[in-house]
Protein backbone atom coordinates (compact mmCIF):
# COMPACT_ATOMS: atom_id res chain seq x y z
CA UNK A 1 0.00 0.00 0.00
CA UNK A 2 1.31 3.47 -0.89
CA UNK A 3 0.13 6.78 0.59
CA UNK A 4 1.02 9.49 -1.92
CA UNK A 5 1.18 13.30 -1.38
CA UNK A 6 -1.31 12.94 1.46
CA UNK A 7 -2.67 15.80 3.54
CA UNK A 8 -4.85 14.80 6.50
CA UNK A 9 -8.10 16.64 7.20
CA UNK A 10 -7.96 19.27 10.00
CA UNK A 11 -4.15 19.68 9.72
CA UNK A 12 -2.38 22.67 8.19
CA UNK A 13 0.64 20.83 6.71
CA UNK A 14 0.75 17.75 4.46
CA UNK A 15 2.19 14.45 5.73
CA UNK A 16 5.43 15.43 4.02
CA UNK A 17 6.56 12.08 2.65
CA UNK A 18 5.13 9.29 0.57
CA UNK A 19 4.56 6.28 2.78
CA UNK A 20 4.71 2.62 1.92
CA UNK A 21 3.36 -0.18 4.06
CA UNK A 22 5.13 -3.38 2.99
CA UNK A 23 3.78 -6.87 3.26
CA UNK A 24 4.84 -8.49 6.56
CA UNK A 25 6.04 -5.19 8.01
CA UNK A 26 5.19 -4.06 11.54
CA UNK A 27 5.14 -0.28 11.95
CA UNK A 28 4.90 1.64 15.23
CA UNK A 29 3.44 5.13 14.85
CA UNK A 30 4.53 7.47 17.65
CA UNK A 31 3.47 11.04 18.35
CA UNK A 32 1.91 13.36 20.89
CA UNK A 33 -1.78 13.41 21.72
CA UNK A 34 -3.75 15.04 18.86
CA UNK A 35 -0.87 14.83 16.34
CA UNK A 36 -2.92 12.88 13.80
CA UNK A 37 -2.08 9.21 14.46
CA UNK A 38 -5.72 8.12 14.57
CA UNK A 39 -6.60 10.45 11.66
CA UNK A 40 -3.91 8.77 9.54
CA UNK A 41 -5.19 5.28 10.40
CA UNK A 42 -8.79 6.34 9.69
CA UNK A 43 -7.73 7.76 6.31
CA UNK A 44 -5.94 4.50 5.43
CA UNK A 45 -9.02 2.53 6.50
CA UNK A 46 -11.25 4.77 4.37
CA UNK A 47 -13.24 6.05 7.37
CA UNK A 48 -12.25 9.63 6.54
CA UNK A 49 -11.18 11.56 3.46
CA UNK A 50 -7.82 13.16 2.85
CA UNK A 51 -7.60 16.91 2.15
CA UNK A 52 -5.28 16.01 -0.71
CA UNK A 53 -3.32 13.06 -2.06
CA UNK A 54 -4.27 9.44 -2.54
CA UNK A 55 -3.98 6.00 -1.04
CA UNK A 56 -3.13 3.24 -3.48
CA UNK A 57 -4.36 0.05 -1.90
CA UNK A 58 -4.74 -2.17 -4.97
CA UNK A 59 -6.60 -5.28 -3.85
CA UNK A 60 -5.33 -5.00 -0.27
CA UNK A 61 -8.03 -5.25 2.40
CA UNK A 62 -7.81 -3.29 5.63
CA UNK A 63 -9.09 -4.07 9.15
CA UNK A 64 -8.96 -1.57 11.99
CA UNK A 65 -9.04 -1.95 15.75
CA UNK A 66 -10.52 1.23 17.18
CA UNK A 67 -8.91 3.02 20.09
CA UNK A 68 -11.96 2.33 22.20
CA UNK A 69 -12.74 -1.39 21.74
CA UNK A 70 -16.27 -0.94 23.11
CA UNK A 71 -17.12 0.96 19.91
CA UNK A 72 -16.80 -2.09 17.69
CA UNK A 73 -18.48 -4.83 19.72
CA UNK A 74 -21.33 -6.45 17.80
CA UNK A 75 -22.24 -9.59 19.73
CA UNK A 76 -22.96 -10.31 23.39
CA UNK A 77 -20.71 -13.32 23.98
CA UNK A 78 -16.97 -13.45 23.33
CA UNK A 79 -17.08 -16.56 21.17
CA UNK A 80 -19.94 -15.11 19.06
CA UNK A 81 -17.89 -11.94 18.56
CA UNK A 82 -14.94 -13.99 17.34
CA UNK A 83 -17.11 -16.17 15.06
CA UNK A 84 -18.78 -13.13 13.50
CA UNK A 85 -16.04 -12.13 10.97
CA UNK A 86 -15.54 -15.79 9.99
CA UNK A 87 -19.24 -16.42 9.49
CA UNK A 88 -19.40 -13.21 7.48
CA UNK A 89 -16.56 -14.49 5.28
CA UNK A 90 -18.59 -17.65 4.61
CA UNK A 91 -16.27 -20.05 6.43
CA UNK A 92 -17.50 -23.44 7.57
CA UNK A 93 -18.24 -24.12 11.23
CA UNK A 94 -15.24 -26.48 11.54
CA UNK A 95 -12.85 -24.00 9.91
CA UNK A 96 -14.18 -21.17 12.07
CA UNK A 97 -13.85 -23.22 15.23
CA UNK A 98 -10.25 -24.05 14.43
CA UNK A 99 -9.38 -20.38 13.71
CA UNK A 100 -11.08 -19.12 16.88
CA UNK A 101 -9.22 -21.71 18.95
CA UNK A 102 -5.89 -20.71 17.37
CA UNK A 103 -6.28 -16.96 17.90
CA UNK A 104 -7.65 -17.45 21.43
CA UNK A 105 -4.58 -19.52 22.23
CA UNK A 106 -2.21 -16.96 20.66
CA UNK A 107 -3.71 -14.17 22.77
CA UNK A 108 -4.23 -16.33 25.88
CA UNK A 109 -7.97 -15.60 26.04
CA UNK A 110 -9.31 -19.17 25.92
CA UNK A 111 -10.78 -18.72 29.41
CA UNK A 112 -12.85 -15.74 28.19
CA UNK A 113 -14.59 -17.47 25.26
CA UNK A 114 -17.84 -18.23 27.11
CA UNK A 115 -18.04 -14.88 28.87
CA UNK A 116 -20.52 -12.07 28.23
CA UNK A 117 -18.43 -9.17 26.88
CA UNK A 118 -20.15 -6.70 29.21
CA UNK A 119 -18.60 -8.52 32.19
CA UNK A 120 -15.02 -8.16 30.92
CA UNK A 121 -12.52 -5.57 32.08
CA UNK A 122 -11.32 -2.92 29.62
CA UNK A 123 -8.05 -4.80 29.05
CA UNK A 124 -9.84 -8.11 28.48
CA UNK A 125 -12.21 -6.41 26.01
CA UNK A 126 -9.18 -4.96 24.23
CA UNK A 127 -7.67 -8.46 23.84
CA UNK A 128 -10.96 -9.90 22.55
CA UNK A 129 -11.30 -7.15 19.95
CA UNK A 130 -7.66 -7.61 18.88
CA UNK A 131 -8.54 -11.27 18.30
CA UNK A 132 -11.69 -10.31 16.35
CA UNK A 133 -9.65 -7.92 14.16
CA UNK A 134 -7.07 -10.63 13.44
CA UNK A 135 -9.85 -13.00 12.35
CA UNK A 136 -10.92 -10.72 9.50
CA UNK A 137 -9.54 -11.62 6.11
CA UNK A 138 -7.56 -8.40 5.82
CA UNK A 139 -4.05 -7.84 4.48
CA UNK A 140 -3.36 -4.76 6.59
CA UNK A 141 -4.19 -4.46 10.28
CA UNK A 142 -4.47 -0.96 11.68
CA UNK A 143 -4.25 -1.14 15.47
CA UNK A 144 -5.10 2.12 17.26
CA UNK A 145 -3.47 2.07 20.70
CA UNK A 146 -4.08 -1.67 21.15
CA UNK A 147 -1.90 -1.90 24.27
CA UNK A 148 -3.28 1.11 26.18
CA UNK A 149 -5.08 -1.05 28.80
CA UNK A 150 -2.74 -4.06 28.80
CA UNK A 151 -0.18 -4.98 31.44
CA UNK A 152 3.41 -5.71 30.28
CA UNK A 153 3.00 -9.51 30.00
CA UNK A 154 -0.16 -9.00 27.91
CA UNK A 155 1.68 -6.43 25.76
CA UNK A 156 4.28 -9.10 25.00
CA UNK A 157 1.51 -11.60 24.18
CA UNK A 158 -0.03 -9.03 21.82
CA UNK A 159 3.28 -8.51 20.02
CA UNK A 160 3.96 -12.23 19.71
CA UNK A 161 0.52 -12.50 18.05
CA UNK A 162 1.45 -9.61 15.71
CA UNK A 163 4.71 -11.39 14.87
CA UNK A 164 2.69 -14.44 13.88
CA UNK A 165 0.42 -12.26 11.70
CA UNK A 166 3.47 -10.64 10.05
CA UNK A 167 4.85 -14.13 9.30
CA UNK A 168 1.60 -14.78 7.42
CA UNK A 169 2.40 -11.71 5.28
CA UNK A 170 0.03 -9.30 7.03
CA UNK A 171 1.12 -5.65 7.33
CA UNK A 172 0.58 -4.07 10.72
CA UNK A 173 0.44 -0.42 11.70
CA UNK A 174 0.24 0.21 15.45
CA UNK A 175 -0.17 3.51 17.30
CA UNK A 176 1.04 3.81 20.87
CA UNK A 177 1.90 6.32 23.57
CA UNK A 178 4.69 4.03 24.73
CA UNK A 179 7.96 4.39 22.77
CA UNK A 180 9.30 1.41 24.76
CA UNK A 181 7.36 -0.78 22.31
CA UNK A 182 9.73 0.12 19.44
CA UNK A 183 11.73 -3.06 20.04
CA UNK A 184 8.75 -5.23 18.99
CA UNK A 185 8.41 -3.55 15.57
CA UNK A 186 10.40 -3.34 12.31
CA UNK A 187 9.88 0.36 11.64
CA UNK A 188 8.98 3.44 13.69
CA UNK A 189 7.24 6.49 12.19
CA UNK A 190 7.40 9.68 14.24
CA UNK A 191 4.52 12.09 13.72
CA UNK A 192 3.96 15.69 14.81
CA UNK A 193 1.04 17.99 13.97
CA UNK A 194 -0.14 15.97 10.98
CA UNK A 195 3.38 15.55 9.55
CA UNK A 196 5.58 12.43 9.45
CA UNK A 197 8.88 13.73 10.81
CA UNK A 198 10.87 10.58 10.19
CA UNK A 199 10.85 6.84 9.51
CA UNK A 200 13.42 4.67 11.23
CA UNK A 201 14.33 1.06 11.75
CA UNK A 202 14.03 -0.29 15.30
CA UNK A 203 17.85 -0.41 15.49
CA UNK A 204 18.09 3.32 14.89
CA UNK A 205 15.57 4.17 17.62
CA UNK A 206 17.82 4.65 20.68
CA UNK A 207 19.79 7.35 18.83
CA UNK A 208 16.71 8.84 17.15
CA UNK A 209 14.78 9.05 20.43
CA UNK A 210 17.61 11.06 21.92
CA UNK A 211 17.49 13.45 18.96
CA UNK A 212 13.70 13.88 19.27
CA UNK A 213 13.80 14.03 23.11
CA UNK A 214 11.64 10.92 23.36
CA UNK A 215 12.06 9.40 26.81
CA UNK A 216 11.41 5.73 27.51
CA UNK A 217 9.23 4.70 30.45
CA UNK A 218 11.90 2.22 31.53
CA UNK A 219 14.51 5.02 31.84
CA UNK A 220 12.24 7.06 34.12
CA UNK A 221 11.25 3.98 36.14
CA UNK A 222 14.94 3.24 36.83
CA UNK A 223 15.59 6.86 37.80
CA UNK A 224 12.61 6.88 40.16
CA UNK A 225 13.59 3.55 41.75
CA UNK A 226 17.08 4.92 42.45
CA UNK A 227 15.48 8.01 44.01
CA UNK A 228 13.27 5.83 46.24
CA UNK A 229 16.24 3.66 47.26
CA UNK A 230 18.11 6.74 48.48
Amino acid at each position, binding site marked *: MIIRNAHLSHFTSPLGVNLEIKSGESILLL*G*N*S*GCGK*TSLLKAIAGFSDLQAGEIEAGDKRVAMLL*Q*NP*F*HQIIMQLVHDELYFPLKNAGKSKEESESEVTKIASLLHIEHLLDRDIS*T*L*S*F*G*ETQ*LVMIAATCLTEADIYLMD*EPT*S*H*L*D*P*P*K*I*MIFYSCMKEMAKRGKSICITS*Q*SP*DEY*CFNDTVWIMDDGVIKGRFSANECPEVFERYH*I*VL*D*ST*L*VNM*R*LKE*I*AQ
Partner: protein
Amino acid sequence: MKILPFIYKISDTKELINALEIDLSASSCTAIMGSVGSGKSLLIKLLSDSHLREVGAFSEYLFCAYLSQDLTRLFTGNTPESILELYKDKRYTVGQYFDPMLFDQYAKKLEIDQLLDKNRRLAHYSEGERQRLGLCLAAAVKAPVTILDEPTTALNMAYRQILFEIIKEVQERSRVFIISHRLLDCIAVADHLIRMEDLNIAEHFSIEQIIEKEHILSYYSF
Protein backbone atom coordinates in the same frame (compact mmCIF):
# COMPACT_ATOMS: atom_id res chain seq x y z
CA MET B 1 -10.81 5.85 56.07
CA LYS B 2 -10.04 2.13 55.76
CA ILE B 3 -10.48 -0.75 53.38
CA LEU B 4 -12.04 -3.51 55.49
CA PRO B 5 -11.98 -7.28 55.06
CA PHE B 6 -14.91 -8.20 52.76
CA ILE B 7 -16.26 -10.67 50.24
CA TYR B 8 -18.14 -9.34 47.19
CA LYS B 9 -20.05 -11.92 45.16
CA ILE B 10 -19.63 -11.20 41.44
CA SER B 11 -21.37 -14.35 40.17
CA ASP B 12 -22.12 -17.89 41.36
CA THR B 13 -18.49 -18.84 40.86
CA LYS B 14 -16.60 -15.58 41.35
CA GLU B 15 -15.89 -13.40 44.39
CA LEU B 16 -13.76 -10.34 45.01
CA ILE B 17 -12.05 -10.98 48.34
CA ASN B 18 -10.01 -8.90 50.75
CA ALA B 19 -8.57 -10.26 53.99
CA LEU B 20 -6.55 -7.16 54.90
CA GLU B 21 -7.42 -4.02 56.83
CA ILE B 22 -5.79 -1.10 55.01
CA ASP B 23 -5.57 2.40 56.44
CA LEU B 24 -6.05 5.19 53.88
CA SER B 25 -5.12 8.39 55.65
CA ALA B 26 -6.05 11.86 54.41
CA SER B 27 -3.59 13.25 51.82
CA SER B 28 -2.52 9.77 50.80
CA CYS B 29 -2.04 8.52 47.23
CA THR B 30 -2.71 4.82 46.70
CA ALA B 31 -1.75 3.09 43.48
CA ILE B 32 -3.69 -0.04 42.58
CA MET B 33 -1.72 -2.38 40.37
CA GLY B 34 -2.34 -5.87 39.00
CA SER B 35 -2.82 -7.77 35.77
CA VAL B 36 -5.66 -7.34 33.28
CA GLY B 37 -8.90 -8.58 34.88
CA SER B 38 -7.47 -8.83 38.41
CA GLY B 39 -10.25 -6.67 39.87
CA LYS B 40 -8.63 -3.23 40.17
CA SER B 41 -11.51 -1.22 38.71
CA LEU B 42 -14.07 -3.38 40.54
CA LEU B 43 -12.41 -2.63 43.91
CA ILE B 44 -12.69 1.07 43.23
CA LYS B 45 -16.27 0.70 42.01
CA LEU B 46 -17.15 -0.66 45.46
CA LEU B 47 -16.06 2.72 46.83
CA SER B 48 -17.62 5.02 44.25
CA ASP B 49 -20.92 3.29 43.44
CA SER B 50 -23.50 4.02 46.12
CA HIS B 51 -25.45 0.87 45.19
CA LEU B 52 -22.58 -1.30 46.41
CA ARG B 53 -22.11 0.20 49.89
CA GLU B 54 -23.87 -2.65 51.65
CA VAL B 55 -20.82 -4.81 50.88
CA GLY B 56 -18.98 -2.89 53.61
CA ALA B 57 -15.68 -2.86 51.75
CA PHE B 58 -14.76 0.60 53.06
CA SER B 59 -15.19 2.16 56.50
CA GLU B 60 -16.49 5.44 55.03
CA TYR B 61 -18.07 6.43 51.73
CA LEU B 62 -16.99 9.97 51.03
CA PHE B 63 -17.87 11.90 47.87
CA CYS B 64 -15.57 10.82 45.03
CA ALA B 65 -14.22 12.76 42.07
CA TYR B 66 -13.92 10.05 39.46
CA LEU B 67 -12.16 9.73 36.12
CA SER B 68 -13.46 6.64 34.35
CA GLN B 69 -11.22 4.60 32.06
CA ASP B 70 -13.86 4.78 29.33
CA LEU B 71 -14.19 8.47 28.50
CA THR B 72 -16.28 8.32 25.35
CA ARG B 73 -19.25 6.82 27.19
CA LEU B 74 -19.40 9.89 29.39
CA PHE B 75 -18.78 12.56 26.82
CA THR B 76 -20.29 11.57 23.48
CA GLY B 77 -22.52 14.24 22.02
CA ASN B 78 -21.59 16.95 24.52
CA THR B 79 -19.57 20.10 24.16
CA PRO B 80 -17.12 21.26 26.86
CA GLU B 81 -19.47 24.16 27.57
CA SER B 82 -22.41 21.85 28.32
CA ILE B 83 -20.27 19.66 30.59
CA LEU B 84 -18.90 22.63 32.48
CA GLU B 85 -22.44 23.99 32.94
CA LEU B 86 -23.34 20.72 34.66
CA TYR B 87 -20.21 20.67 36.82
CA LYS B 88 -20.87 24.27 37.94
CA ASP B 89 -24.52 23.65 38.80
CA LYS B 90 -24.80 23.92 42.59
CA ARG B 91 -28.00 21.84 42.61
CA TYR B 92 -25.83 18.78 41.98
CA THR B 93 -23.35 17.42 44.53
CA VAL B 94 -20.50 17.80 42.04
CA GLY B 95 -21.36 21.51 41.70
CA GLN B 96 -20.77 22.00 45.42
CA TYR B 97 -17.22 20.66 45.12
CA PHE B 98 -16.20 21.95 41.66
CA ASP B 99 -13.77 24.88 41.46
CA PRO B 100 -13.95 26.54 37.98
CA MET B 101 -10.77 28.56 38.54
CA LEU B 102 -8.84 25.43 39.39
CA PHE B 103 -10.27 23.82 36.24
CA ASP B 104 -8.98 26.74 34.13
CA GLN B 105 -5.53 26.37 35.72
CA TYR B 106 -5.34 22.65 34.95
CA ALA B 107 -6.72 23.19 31.42
CA LYS B 108 -3.86 25.60 30.79
CA LYS B 109 -1.29 23.22 32.26
CA LEU B 110 -2.53 20.32 30.16
CA GLU B 111 -2.85 22.59 27.11
CA ILE B 112 -6.51 22.12 26.33
CA ASP B 113 -7.55 25.71 27.13
CA GLN B 114 -7.45 26.86 23.48
CA LEU B 115 -9.21 23.71 22.35
CA LEU B 116 -12.01 24.32 24.88
CA ASP B 117 -12.50 27.87 23.59
CA LYS B 118 -13.53 26.41 20.21
CA ASN B 119 -16.34 24.48 21.99
CA ARG B 120 -16.26 21.60 19.47
CA ARG B 121 -18.32 18.50 20.20
CA LEU B 122 -16.30 15.97 22.20
CA ALA B 123 -17.01 13.31 19.59
CA HIS B 124 -14.44 15.19 17.47
CA TYR B 125 -11.74 15.19 20.18
CA SER B 126 -8.88 12.73 20.05
CA GLU B 127 -8.77 10.20 22.92
CA GLY B 128 -5.81 12.08 24.43
CA GLU B 129 -7.64 15.41 24.30
CA ARG B 130 -10.69 13.80 25.89
CA GLN B 131 -8.53 12.24 28.59
CA ARG B 132 -6.89 15.59 29.40
CA LEU B 133 -10.34 17.21 29.69
CA GLY B 134 -11.51 14.39 31.98
CA LEU B 135 -8.42 14.83 34.16
CA CYS B 136 -8.95 18.58 34.50
CA LEU B 137 -12.57 17.99 35.51
CA ALA B 138 -11.71 15.29 38.09
CA ALA B 139 -8.80 17.25 39.56
CA ALA B 140 -10.85 20.46 39.88
CA VAL B 141 -13.54 18.72 41.94
CA LYS B 142 -12.32 19.36 45.49
CA ALA B 143 -13.65 16.04 46.77
CA PRO B 144 -12.34 14.13 49.81
CA VAL B 145 -11.59 11.17 47.48
CA THR B 146 -10.23 11.39 43.92
CA ILE B 147 -10.21 8.27 41.74
CA LEU B 148 -8.20 8.16 38.52
CA ASP B 149 -8.80 4.91 36.66
CA GLU B 150 -6.08 4.44 34.00
CA PRO B 151 -5.58 8.18 33.58
CA THR B 152 -2.56 8.03 31.25
CA THR B 153 -3.61 5.53 28.55
CA ALA B 154 -3.76 8.21 25.85
CA LEU B 155 -1.15 10.65 27.20
CA ASN B 156 2.38 11.13 25.94
CA MET B 157 5.23 11.47 28.43
CA ALA B 158 5.17 15.28 28.62
CA TYR B 159 1.50 15.30 29.66
CA ARG B 160 2.06 12.38 32.05
CA GLN B 161 4.73 14.42 33.84
CA ILE B 162 2.32 17.37 34.14
CA LEU B 163 -0.35 15.00 35.45
CA PHE B 164 2.08 13.72 38.13
CA GLU B 165 2.50 17.34 39.34
CA ILE B 166 -1.28 17.85 39.35
CA ILE B 167 -1.81 14.64 41.35
CA LYS B 168 0.68 15.88 43.98
CA GLU B 169 -1.41 19.06 44.30
CA VAL B 170 -4.70 17.15 44.49
CA GLN B 171 -3.23 14.84 47.13
CA GLU B 172 -2.86 17.81 49.50
CA ARG B 173 -6.64 18.10 49.74
CA SER B 174 -7.88 14.59 48.84
CA ARG B 175 -7.20 10.87 49.15
CA VAL B 176 -6.09 9.90 45.66
CA PHE B 177 -6.46 6.45 44.08
CA ILE B 178 -4.68 5.79 40.82
CA ILE B 179 -5.09 2.60 38.79
CA SER B 180 -2.48 2.00 36.12
CA HIS B 181 -0.75 -0.73 34.15
CA ARG B 182 2.30 1.48 33.94
CA LEU B 183 4.74 1.10 36.81
CA LEU B 184 6.00 4.66 36.34
CA ASP B 185 2.52 6.12 36.97
CA CYS B 186 2.28 4.17 40.22
CA ILE B 187 5.72 4.88 41.65
CA ALA B 188 5.88 8.52 40.51
CA VAL B 189 2.93 9.61 42.64
CA ALA B 190 1.86 6.95 45.16
CA ASP B 191 2.99 6.73 48.75
CA HIS B 192 1.64 3.21 49.05
CA LEU B 193 0.54 0.47 46.71
CA ILE B 194 -2.06 -2.27 46.55
CA ARG B 195 -1.49 -5.27 44.29
CA MET B 196 -4.52 -7.21 43.07
CA GLU B 197 -4.27 -10.81 41.93
CA ASP B 198 -7.12 -13.04 40.76
CA LEU B 199 -9.80 -10.86 42.38
CA ASN B 200 -7.93 -10.70 45.72
CA ILE B 201 -6.03 -7.89 47.40
CA ALA B 202 -2.75 -9.78 47.47
CA GLU B 203 -0.43 -7.15 48.94
CA HIS B 204 -0.34 -3.71 50.48
CA PHE B 205 2.98 -1.94 50.96
CA SER B 206 4.66 1.45 51.15
CA ILE B 207 6.48 3.02 48.19
CA GLU B 208 9.84 2.44 49.92
CA GLN B 209 9.15 -1.31 49.91
CA ILE B 210 8.81 -1.46 46.10
CA ILE B 211 12.60 -1.87 45.86
CA GLU B 212 12.32 -5.28 47.58
CA LYS B 213 9.42 -6.46 45.40
CA GLU B 214 11.35 -8.24 42.70
CA HIS B 215 8.30 -10.18 41.51
CA ILE B 216 6.59 -6.85 40.78
CA LEU B 217 9.61 -5.16 39.20
CA SER B 218 10.23 -8.09 36.87
CA TYR B 219 6.50 -8.29 36.03
CA TYR B 220 6.58 -4.69 34.79
CA SER B 221 9.70 -4.96 32.61
CA PHE B 222 9.59 -6.08 28.98
